[in-house]
């Protein structure tokens, strides 16, 4: 069945796409814009179609085992799974980065305030009133 589904024209189109996308992905990896896990997940767009072309009999066996009539359904299913794993990773990294940015912004503001406090203390001209400690005896009464 697969030789009827994957025609020579489809095979040629897929090979062209795989070649172009591989070049794009490898260049991104070389430029360090992708880490190894994102690279592997994004490669799924090459790997699964390549698997379909190179091992049509195996692919057909998997499709029939899954009870699916149209083999490309399995292919798209595998691509969706790869995409969701990638999205989950991105969402989790984004949350982590958000926490880091919040902590950094807080530290910047705190250091700035503590520095200005220290400058005020070290400046002999500044007149600072003594702190009024809370007297708990009057509150407890």
């Amino acid at each position, binding site marked *: 069945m697969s030789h009827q589904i994957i025609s020579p024209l489809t095979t040629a189109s897929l090979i062209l796409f795989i070649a172009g996308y591989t070049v794009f992905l490898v260049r991104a990896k070389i430029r360090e814009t992708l880490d190894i896990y994102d690279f592997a997940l994004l490669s799924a767009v090459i790997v699964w179609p390549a698997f379909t072309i190179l091992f049509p009999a195996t692919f057909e066996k998997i499709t029939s085992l899954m009870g699916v009539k149209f083999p490309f359904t399995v292919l798209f299913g595998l691509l969706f799974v790869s995409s969701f794993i990638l999205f989950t990773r991105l969402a989790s990294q984004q949350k982590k980065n958000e926490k880091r940015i*919040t902590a950094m912004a807080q530290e910047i503001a705190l250091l700035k305030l503590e520095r200005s406090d220290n400058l005020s203390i070290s400046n002999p001209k500044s007149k600072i009133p003594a702190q009024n400690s809370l007297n708990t005896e009057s509150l407890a009464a």
Partner: protein
Amino acid sequence: MLRQKLLKAQTLSDPARPRVLLIIPCFNEAGTIGSLLREVSETPYDSLVIDDGSKDDTAEISKEWTQCLSLPFNLGIGGAVQSGIKYAFRQNYDLCVQVDGDGQHPPEEITKLVSHWIKTQANLVIGSRFLSTEGFKSGFARRLGIQLISRCLFVLFKNSITDPTSGFRLMDRKAMQLFCEYYPADFPEPTSIALALGHGLNVQETSVIMRSRTDGTSSIYGWKSVSYIIRVLSQILQVRLGGIV
């Protein structure tokens, strides 16, 4: 009128005389912060305004009265409050009281929180507007949402909190230490209670009287309230299941 900044004396803390810092998170509260700080200046507490990336004169007005921690950009209420807690903890304050910058929390009510802490030594004391009949209570829909959250906390943590969304609260050093490390960015009030209860802290309530907002509008309104409730309940559940938000 230029007021001198209040600086804490570098003395060791004394259990009979706890050092208290009021943390006042603000975002565009130029209309109310001046009058609030005037009231705060009449109390015996140190104060710190946390300017959460305001676009108006909140920081400038605050600096005339007290210290101001200016965040480089808006972090949200959770990030702003956590900044204040970190400052209080690092400066060795014994107690930290959160007061909203919109004027809803009368500074004279802070004494009730501190008195309750003295009596019970609770780690977190929440000022509840529902334990008395006086004062501002919020609208019906909001009260319904608050009751839902309260019920959820009771079911999951076996602790009855009548006003889980109150931002008027006192923290001791143990609570401060926890919140320095983990403080929810979203819906911090109810989620932080869940966090405190989940870590075995003693959380109590005392009755306070609150005022209605004098300026500005709530950020939670309309359909946002529904999504707020759903998200809060799911975060509380997440904390109960051992997650840190």
